[in-house]
């Protein structure tokens, strides 16, 4: 029988070769387009006398930033200002992500409660906060904080906390040796707890004796922390907020801008996460719930041990979407006056006129943060996938 003539490695009949040619063509096309756009922009900017370049980042900023984790004064350069904006964005994004996950999961699971009132409340929550635009929700929370709350002269007192137009003031522990040791101890305890978990899982697979996988590591972490605190002299001094003449003095403070951005974004995104969680729970076959009931598991145990782990596979990709949405929606904080990275870039554009560079920096910041988040979530997704054929 005649064989087909052998394919030469560079023949057009080879699929690999065709694929390579198409890819090289596509990459060349994209590089040419991007190069043309960049060159065109530069030429036009030079013709109009607009300065370009990133050298402005080293000059003094000349503006103050409302709130920052690190001290900032107007003499620092723009790099520093951008960094402060970035830390502010991270602050609201990370806190928002944690709170959204907790709140969204609770509301999504609450849709399946036996109590019709709880079910109805979850439906109302989701429908209310999903359908109102997020900027309006942020503005509503900000107005609540600045109009409805009382003045700093007579704030609402909740124990040691003060709630007023100036924000939420809370007592903060004075950082001394004891707290340092406690932090170091908790860092060590994380390693010890991780090692314990590995040993407990292996011991269970070897002998079948179940061991506590959650409470013992928590006890280890807390125990090491308390031990470190005691070794450091057990300092228990607190910086208490006190009623000053015009405002509340001392203590730690959460500004109304931060609180309204956090609350608005969390409550908005939690509505979406709740729907994703509900879809994930519905995707688990009903037979699983029935089998769990046949085993004698209660409803809470079924949800925690049987339904949610299987629903995770369906939940994680859309929830990654919502995490990225929350991170990017934090740029709306510029409408409220919270100094996140977009607000800083806005001020920088107004002052230096370098619009293209500043927007490029913002895009790089959000792109890298979003890529990192989706990378981590994809790793988690692969890890929690049910091993099939």
């Amino acid at each position: 029988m005649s064989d087909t003539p052998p394919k030469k490695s560079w023949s057009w009949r080879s699929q690999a070769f065709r694929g390579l040619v198409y890819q090289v063509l596509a990459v060349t096309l994209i590089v040419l387009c991007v190069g043309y756009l960049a060159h065109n922009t530069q030429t036009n900017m030079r013709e109009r006398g607009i300065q370009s370049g990133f050298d402005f980042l080293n000059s003094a900023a000349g503006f103050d930033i409302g709130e920052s984790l690190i001290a900032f004064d107007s003499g620092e350069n723009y790099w520093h200002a951008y960094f402060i904006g970035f830390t502010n964005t991270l602050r609201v994004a990370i806190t928002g992500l944690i709170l959204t996950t907790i709140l969204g999961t609770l509301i999504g699971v609450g849709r399946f409660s036996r109590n019709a009132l709880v079910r109805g409340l979850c439906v109302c929550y989701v429908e209310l906060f999903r359908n109102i635009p997020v900027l309006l929700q942020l503005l509503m929370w900000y107005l609540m904080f600045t109009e409805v709350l009382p003045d700093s002269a007579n704030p609402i007192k909740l124990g040691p906390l003060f709630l007023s137009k100036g924000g939420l003031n809370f007592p903060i522990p004075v950082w001394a040796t004891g707290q340092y040791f406690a932090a170091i101890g908790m860092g060590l305890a994380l390693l010890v707890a991780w090692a314990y978990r590995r040993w407990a899982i292996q011991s269970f697979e070897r002998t079948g004796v179940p061991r506590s996988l959650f409470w013992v590591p928590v006890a280890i972490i807390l125990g090491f922390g308390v031990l470190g605190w005691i070794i450091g002299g057990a300092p228990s001094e607190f910086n208490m907020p006190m009623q000053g003449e015009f405002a509340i003095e001392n203590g730690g403070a959460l500004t109304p801008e931060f609180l309204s951005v956090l609350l608005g974004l969390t409550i908005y995104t939690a509505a979406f996460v709740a729907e994703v969680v509900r879809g994930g729970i519905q995707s688990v076959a009903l037979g699983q719930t029935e089998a769990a009931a046949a085993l004698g598991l209660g409803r809470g145990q079924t949800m925690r041990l049987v339904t949610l782990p299987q629903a995770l596979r369906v939940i994680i990709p859309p929830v990654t979407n919502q995490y990225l949405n929350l991170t990017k929606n934090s740029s709306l904080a510029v409408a409220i006056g919270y100094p996140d990275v977009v607000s800083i870039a806005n001020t920088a554009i107004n002052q230096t006129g370098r619009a293209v560079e500043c927007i490029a920096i913002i895009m790089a910041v959000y792109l890298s943060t979003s890529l990192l988040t989706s990378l981590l979530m994809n790793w988690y997704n692969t890890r929690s996938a049910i091993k099939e054929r």
Partner: protein
Amino acid sequence: MTAQVFQAIAPRPAPVKVEGFVAWIRTNLFGDLRTSLGTLAIGAVLLWIVPPLIQWLFINAIWIKDYQACHNGSGACWGVIAEKYRIII
């Protein structure tokens, strides 16, 4: 032997109703102890929030474009919409 025809007696009513509004409330709102406590707690919170809200929204609200009444009143000022609807829309 005469054939005996089976005579059915009248069916008795079911001891507990499973249909109807009261039955729905009994199963969905007061099914077991935890559900009942939850209903009472949420009911208390709703009773605390909703009547003042309805008062502010509808009962004490000012529906006319009257600045003095809005200023002195304690309800929502819906007259502002009549005043500013051209800008809003």
